[in-house]
């Protein structure tokens, strides 16, 4: 111990002359710009997916109903309520938020004497930090799940533009599991899917590699997984919560993956449908399209003896005769339908109900009838010249291709229409032309402008890859016929399609016209239905807008034994048909059990 040790501590007095470090105004200290303070939610952006609730380890987040936000497609109408008696400000909810609507502000003072106060709905309840912009947000490059879709293998344009080989290759197990892993299991998609499929559950089955369980979940609501897995309009993907900051989950391909993995001969064993107890009642189904097949499947399972009447030579309806083989191979249709056949459903082909078999006969022979005849009549543009023999309906041509008939092609063809059917026929013609002439000369045109075409984006992109010309935004005016031969289609620029009241009433710019050269025109502007078989009982039925038969939620018409569904009621698309068939089957069961 030296004198130095005694004196040294006194050097602390040197601080006496320094500026004090004390914060003068301790009450108004601003936190750092990235401080994790109180929550703020952009309630209009939020979709109430509940992922924040899912990840919160403190159970601090509840989804609650909030005034002003109603449930709609892609938005549950719920908003997160946060309990500051639980929160630990870890900000995992911000990191995981699918819409990035949730963030933290850098406000940190909240004092109250009432412990019940500390529960609020951020962004909805009035709080003094609501207009603060600083605070914690998720950084780019930091993701708790992948926002990128697993790339799907496709045939290249050169490989596919001459053949009808299926162009989507399908996922491998590893890819499927990786894609399935992206699902956040919010379930927003379920309500939007017309069939209300258990989407998160079957995706979970893919993740676990348990395709048998996946198949069981699929068949709860959808008896045509192979078909749906390829050509479904996938409304679920448009509302997928991952869509908001990345790619939507490819729900459709995952569904297809499950069905592809299970061989047809194991279906009965997996689904437990080896033995079905028949109840002795009989149901007739008109039309072997998705709705009819779906009804046939569920009715068969319930023990009904089902007979399906189909005018064509093979089952599948539009899926077989309206969709080209490169999108939906016929053996995949057969796989689904053979299973339905194996459940005991009978089919009678080449029979037109109302012509070959009157509806009255069905009424007598069966306990109930389900009519799902679909939309098979092409609609015409009715422009001058559209009655020419070289003006075709897309739907007729597609059917002919399915039957393997030779199409009378030309080198220059114009397709009128911008929907998926128009793309189907355009791409089909492109392939046929490529085979026949070695080059493609097909142009598709439609009223809708680029970007708002009703067809799926990838359809348009792929059609262009296959060298078809897509020139949207034109309204057909006249088919130019010279010497009995078609020379072209005169079109005018379309300014708007709907009028102020939202009715279909296109306005053209007559100054801006041009002519698409063509030797053949294909019209694909929608389809109509043929329900002439109901002519005899027409007065007993009620008809809604656009000539549709009015039905109850069970798809029962005003005639109790007649159920109607499919494209002629809702849609048109395959998943509505499947949902209709399922609901109708339940309705028929309810009706017949109550009888």
């Amino acid at each position, binding site marked *: 111990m030296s004198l130095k040790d005694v004196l040294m501590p006194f050097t602390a007095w040197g601080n006496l002359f320094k500026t004090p470090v*004390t914060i003068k105004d301790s009450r108004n200290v601003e936190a750092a710009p990235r401080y994790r303070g109180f929550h703020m939610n952009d309630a209009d952006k939020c979709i109430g997916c509940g992922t924040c609730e899912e990840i919160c380890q403190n159970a601090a987040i509840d989804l609650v109903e909030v005034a002003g936000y109603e449930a709609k497609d892609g938005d549950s109408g719920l908003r997160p309520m946060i309990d500051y008696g639980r*929160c630990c400000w870890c900000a995992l909810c911000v990191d995981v938020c699918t819409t990035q609507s949730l963030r933290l502000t850098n406000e*940190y003072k909240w*004092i109250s*004497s009432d412990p019940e106060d*500390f529960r609020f709905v951020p962004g909805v309840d009035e709080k003094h930090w609501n207009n603060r912009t600083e605070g914690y947000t998720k950084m780019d490059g930091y993701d708790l799940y992948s926002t990128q879709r697993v790339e799907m293998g496709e045939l290249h344009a050169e490989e596919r533009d001459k053949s009808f080989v299926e162009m989507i290759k399908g996922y491998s197990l590893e890819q499927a599991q990786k894609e399935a892993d992206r699902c956040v299991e919010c379930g927003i998609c379920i309500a939007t899917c017309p069939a209300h499929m258990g989407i998160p559950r079957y995706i979970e089955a893919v993740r676990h590699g348990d395709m048998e369980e996946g198949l069981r979940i699929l068949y709860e609501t959808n008896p045509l997984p192979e078909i749906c897995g390829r050509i479904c309009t996938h409304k679920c993907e448009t509302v997928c919560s991952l869509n908001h900051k990345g790619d939507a989950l490819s729900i459709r391909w995952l569904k297809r993956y499950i069905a592809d993995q299970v061989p047809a001969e194991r279906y009965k064993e997996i689904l437990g449908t080896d033995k079905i107890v028949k109840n002795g009642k009989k149901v007739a189904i008109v039309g072997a399209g998705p709705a009819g097949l779906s009804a046939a499947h569920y009715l068969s399972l319930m023990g009904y003896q089902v007979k399906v009447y189909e005018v064509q030579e093979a089952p599948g309806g539009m899926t077989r005769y309206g969709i080209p083989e490169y999108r939906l191979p016929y053996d995949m249709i057969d796989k689904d339908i053979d299973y339905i056949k194996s459940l005991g459903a009978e089919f009678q082909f080449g029979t037109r109900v109302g012509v070959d078999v009157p509806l009255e006969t069905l009424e007598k022979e069966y306990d109930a009838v389900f009519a799902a005849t679909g939309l098979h009549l092409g609609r015409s543009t009715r422009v001058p010249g559209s009655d020419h023999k070289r003006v075709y309906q897309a739907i007729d041509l597609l059917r002919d291709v399915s039957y393997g008939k030779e199409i009378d092609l030309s080198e220059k063809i114009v397709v009128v229409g911008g929907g998926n059917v128009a793309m189907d026929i355009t791409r089909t013609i492109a392939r046929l032309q490529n085979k026949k002439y070695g080059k493609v000369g097909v142009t598709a045109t439609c009223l809708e402008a680029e970007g708002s075409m009703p067809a799926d984006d990838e359809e348009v992109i792929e059609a262009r890859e296959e060298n078809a010309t897509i020139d949207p935004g034109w309204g057909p005016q006249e088919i130019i016929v010279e010497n009995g031969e078609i020379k072209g289609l005169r079109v005018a620029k379309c300014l708007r399609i709907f009028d102020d009241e939202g009715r279909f009433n296109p306005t053209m710019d007559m100054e801006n016209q041009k002519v698409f050269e063509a030797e053949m025109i294909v019209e694909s502007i929608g389809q109509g239905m043929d329900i002439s078989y109901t002519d005899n009982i027409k007065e007993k039925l009620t008809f809604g807008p656009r000539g549709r038969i009015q039905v109850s939620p069970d798809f029962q018409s005003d005639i109790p034994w007649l159920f109607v569904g499919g494209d002629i009621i809702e849609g048109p698309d395959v998943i509505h048909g499947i949902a209709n068939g399922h609901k109708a089957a339940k309705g028929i069961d309810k009706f017949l059990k109550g009888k």
Partner: protein
Amino acid sequence: MEKFKDFKKRTVIAPDGEKIEIDPMKDYYCDAIPTPRKDYDKIPGILENFKNWARSESLWILAYGSGCGAIEMRPLMTPKHDAYRFGIQWRPTPRQANLLMISGYLSVKTLRIVVRAYEQMPSPKYVMGLGSCTINGGMYWDSYNTINRLDHFMPVDTYVTGCMPRPEALIAGFDELKKIIRAGKGVGADKYAENFAWYKENQKKILGDVGLPEYSW
């Protein structure tokens, strides 16, 4: 109760040889339960207002951190925030303190101590709950060893939210508490006395019946 096995009368010989009789039960606990002040919830008069002002400007905190939040109290004692200038200081024993800060979760073992410390503090006394844990269990909402709601065990005057609250938030909390005291609403001790049976029942549900007299003083 293993911990209280030594709580019996005995004679202790001090180092200088003096014999000292010790009866811990009598020394630390009493059978008389507390009584609330008369008319404590009435609007205070001028004298009481003056007293409340004096109380609010000298918050003496029991320097006992029950949980995480205690670490953010320490910077208040440093020159940076210097809480002493607001009349706030930390005292080593409950007898000298009138503000009990529950700085976060309370494990069962700590609850036992905190209840006793609270009872030993002279009236009027105030309780401030820091952080989520005191409000609704916080992170440890599903833990088998931490209580979820502080207001079931002692009257709480004010809560400061945060996990854990920043020192600045604590200062804001003191400001709020001062307002409460000046308004004559800092009557936690009276509420505790008034609802003594209910509080004791809740405490005993968790701490077990320790076989001690009801109230420590």
